[in-house]
C-alpha cells in the first residue's frame, strides 16, 4: 500500500509541474491581457510538433542524441511559438483585445471568444492537413526507464519515470526564470503595469499594445515548452490540445484567475488530484475527481486557492 501511495504522490507532483507550466502560459495571457484563449490547447499541440520536427530535422539536435536532444528541442519550441504567438496577436488577437476594445464592454469579450475559438479550430484542422492524423511521439529511451528509489519501510520502491523527471526539472527551471523575469526585470514590470492598469501604464510611457503582444507570445511560448516536454513520453495528434485545455482552465481558475504563481500551483494541484484520486477511486473517475475538487474550491474560495496570497501578474 505504501508503495502505491508513494508512486501516486510522486507521479502527481511530477505531472503536476508540467500541468503547472502549461497553466502559466494560459495564466499569463489571461492575467495580463484578460483574454480567454480557447486556442491554448493548440499552442500546446504546436509545441509538441515543433519539438518533434526540431529533433528529427536538425542535425545539431540529432547529435545531442535521444537523451538531451528532446529536452533542448522542447526549450527551443518556446522561442518559435513566442514569435508565432506575437504574430497571432499582431494580426488577429489585437483586433479584439487591448485598450480600445476593453472600453467596449458590450462586444469586446464576445469577439475574443469567437476569434480564439476560430483560431483553435483552424489550428486543429490545419494541423491535420500539415502533420497528418498519425499519432507521433518524440522517441527517447527515457520514457520507458525509471529512477528507482528505496527500499522504504515494508520494502516499498519508488519509480520515477526518467523522461518525466527531467521534464519536471526543466518545467520548474522555466517557471522560476519566468517568475524572475516578471519580478526583477523592466520588461516584467511593464507587463505587470499593463495588466494592473493599462491606462495608467500608457501615461507612464509603457507601450501597452507591445506589452500585450509580448505577453501573448510568452504565454504561447511557455505552453509550447510544456508541450515539447510532454511529447517526450506521450503520443500526440493535432487534436491533443482538446484533452488538456480543460485541465489548463481548471488549473488557472483553481490557482486564482490572473495569478501566474497561482496558475502553477493550480496546475500542480490538478495533476496531484488526478493521480492520487486513483488510489481511492476507479481510474476512469480520475478526471471527475479534478472537477469535484474544482467545484469545491470554486464554491468555498471563488477567488481560487492562491487568489489572495499569490502576487498578481
Amino acid at each position: 500500500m505504501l508503495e502505491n501511495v508513494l508512486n501516486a504522490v510522486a507521479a502527481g507532483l511530477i505531472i503536476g509541474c508540467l500541468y503547472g507550466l502549461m497553466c502559466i502560459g494560459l495564466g499569463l495571457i489571461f492575467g495580463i491581457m484578460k483574454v480567454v484563449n480557447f486556442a491554448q490547447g493548440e499552442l500546446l499541440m504546436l509545441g509538441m510538433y515543433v519539438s518533434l520536427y526540431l529533433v528529427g530535422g536538425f542535425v545539431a539536435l540529432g547529435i545531442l542524441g535521444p537523451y538531451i536532444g528532446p529536452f533542448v528541442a522542447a526549450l527551443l519550441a518556446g522561442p518559435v511559438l513566442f514569435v508565432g504567438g506575437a504574430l497571432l496577436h499582431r494580426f488577429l488577437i489585437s483586433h479584439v483585445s487591448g485598450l480600445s476594445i476593453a472600453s467596449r464592454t458590450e462586444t469586446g469579450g464576445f469577439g475574443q471568444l469567437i476569434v480564439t475559438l476560430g483560431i483553435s479550430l483552424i489550428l486543429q484542422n490545419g494541423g491535420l492537413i500539415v502533420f497528418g492524423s498519425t499519432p507521433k511521439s518524440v522517441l527517447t529511451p527515457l520514457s520507458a526507464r525509471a529512477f528507482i528509489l528505496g527500499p522504504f519501510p515494508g520494502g516499498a520502491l519508488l519509480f520515477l519515470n526518467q523522461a518525466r523527471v527531467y521534464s519536471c526539472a526543466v518545467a520548474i527551471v522555466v517557471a522560476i526564470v519566468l517568475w524572475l523575469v516578471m519580478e526583477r526585470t523592466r520588461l516584467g514590470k511593464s507587463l505587470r503595469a499593463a495588466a494592473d492598469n493599462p491606462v495608467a501604464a500608457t501615461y507612464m510611457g509603457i507601450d501597452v499594445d507591445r506589452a500585450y503582444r509580448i505577453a501573448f507570445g510568452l504565454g504561447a511560448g511557455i505552453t509550447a515548452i510544456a508541450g515539447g516536454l510532454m511529447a517526450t513520453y506521450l503520443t500526440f495528434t493535432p487534436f491533443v490540445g482538446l484533452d488538456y485545455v480543460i485541465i489548463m482552465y481548471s488549473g488557472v481558475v483553481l490557482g486564482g484567475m490572473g495569478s501566474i504563481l497561482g496558475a502553477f500551483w493550480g496546475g500542480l494541484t490538478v495533476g496531484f488530484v488526478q493521480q492520487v484520486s486513483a488510489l481511492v477511486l476507479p481510474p476512469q473517475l480520475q478526471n471527475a475527481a479534478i472537477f469535484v475538487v474544482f467545484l469545491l474550491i470554486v464554491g468555498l474560495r471563488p477567488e481560487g486557492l492562491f487568489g489572495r496570497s499569490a502576487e498578481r501578474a
Partner: protein
Amino acid sequence: MKTPTIGRRAALSLGGAAALAGASRAVAAPAEVEIALLVPLSGPWAEQGILERLGAEMAVHDVNKAGGIKSLGGAKLKLLVIDTGATAETAKDAAQRMLSEHPHLVGGMGCWLSTFTLAVTEVTERAKLPWLTLSYSDAITDRGFHYIFQTSPTANAQAEQIVPILMKLAQDTTGKRPTKVAIVGDNTAASVSFLKPIKSHILKDEKLTAVVDEIYTPPLSDATTLVQPVRAAHPDFVLLLSTASGDDKLLADTFSEYGMPGSKMPLIGNGGHWVVPELLKTTGAPILQDIMIGLANWPGKDLNALSARYEKRTGNPWFGHNEIFAYAHVQILAWALNKAGAANREKVADAIRTMDITDGPAIYFPGHHLQFDSKGRRVDAELVIVQWQNGRPVTVFPEAMAVGKAVWPT
C-alpha cells in the same frame, strides 16, 4: 397438325424487343457502383482508419483491374472514404451525411471502434444499407439488426478463445498453470464486451483470480496508477484491453519502467491498434518485444504474395489486421454485387446473408469459411494470436497460420 410458326414481322418485332430489353439492361447497369468506408481519419483512432483505407483502396483497385462487377456489365467499384471524426456523435453525423449525399450507395464498411460502429449502424440499418464491420463488440450484432455483418469473432468469443490458449501456452512453457491475472482496460464498447465473459465465468472456469482490475477512460495521460498495482500484485500475466495506440505506448512504456516489459512479464493485448507500424515508431522494438496480441484476423503464410504486393504498393512494413479486414470487406461486397446482379441494397444484403463459401473472399479469413448466422456474425470465426518479435508482429496461433513460435516470457 399445324406447326406454330413465327412470321417475319413477328420475328423482327421480337428481335427488336429483345434488343431493346438488352439495351435497357445495359443502360441500367451502372458504370460505377458506390461503396463507402466510414472510419476515423482524425482523432485518437485515426491511424486505424488510415490503414483500413489503404487496404480498401488496394481491394478496389484489384476488383476493378480484374474487370469490375461482371454481372453488372463490368461496372467499376467506387470507394467513398469518409471520416467519422473523434466521437460517436460526429461518426453518426457523418453517416447521416453520407447517406443523404450518396443515395446510390449499395454497401459500406466501418467504423473500426465499436463505439462508433454502434452509433453509425443505427443510421445505416434504417437506410437498409448492408454494412460490414471488423469491430469486436457483441452489442453490434445483439440488437436484432438485419443489415450489419460482423466478420470478426466478437469480443466475447475472443475472450472465450484466448484465455484457454494462453493457459495452455503458459503451462507448456513453464510447467505450471497461471493462477493470477491482472486486467487493465479502457471503458470502450469492445473492451467491455471482452471483459464480460471473463468476469462472468472464464476466470472461474480456468481457476484464475483477477488480482488487479483497473478500468480507465481513454486517452491516458499517465499510466502510473494503473501499472503500480500490477507490480504489487505479482500476476502471472496481464490482459491489456486498451483501444488506442497512444495508450498502448504509454502502457508498454510504463510496464517497462516498472521492470515488467513484455519480455519479462506476459503482456497480452487485444486488437489491431497493438500492431500498427506507428506504434513501433513511437515506442520502439525493445519495449514491444514479446507482447502478445489477440486479433480477429491477420494474414497467414498463404497470403504472403498479397502481403508483399501491399507492402510494395504502400511502403508500409506489413499487411496487418486493419488492412486485411478492409481488403476482405471490399471483396465481400464485390462478390455480393456480382451474385445479386444488381446495384440494389436489399439484393446485396440477401447475397451476403445467404453466402456460404470457402473460396473467393473467404480466403482472407482464418479457416477460409465465410458464412453469417442469423445475427450477422461470421460462423466459425477464429482468433489469431501474433507476438512482437524483433520489431515485427509474428503470427504464432493458430498453428495452420503460424510463421513463428510463441514465446511465453518467464
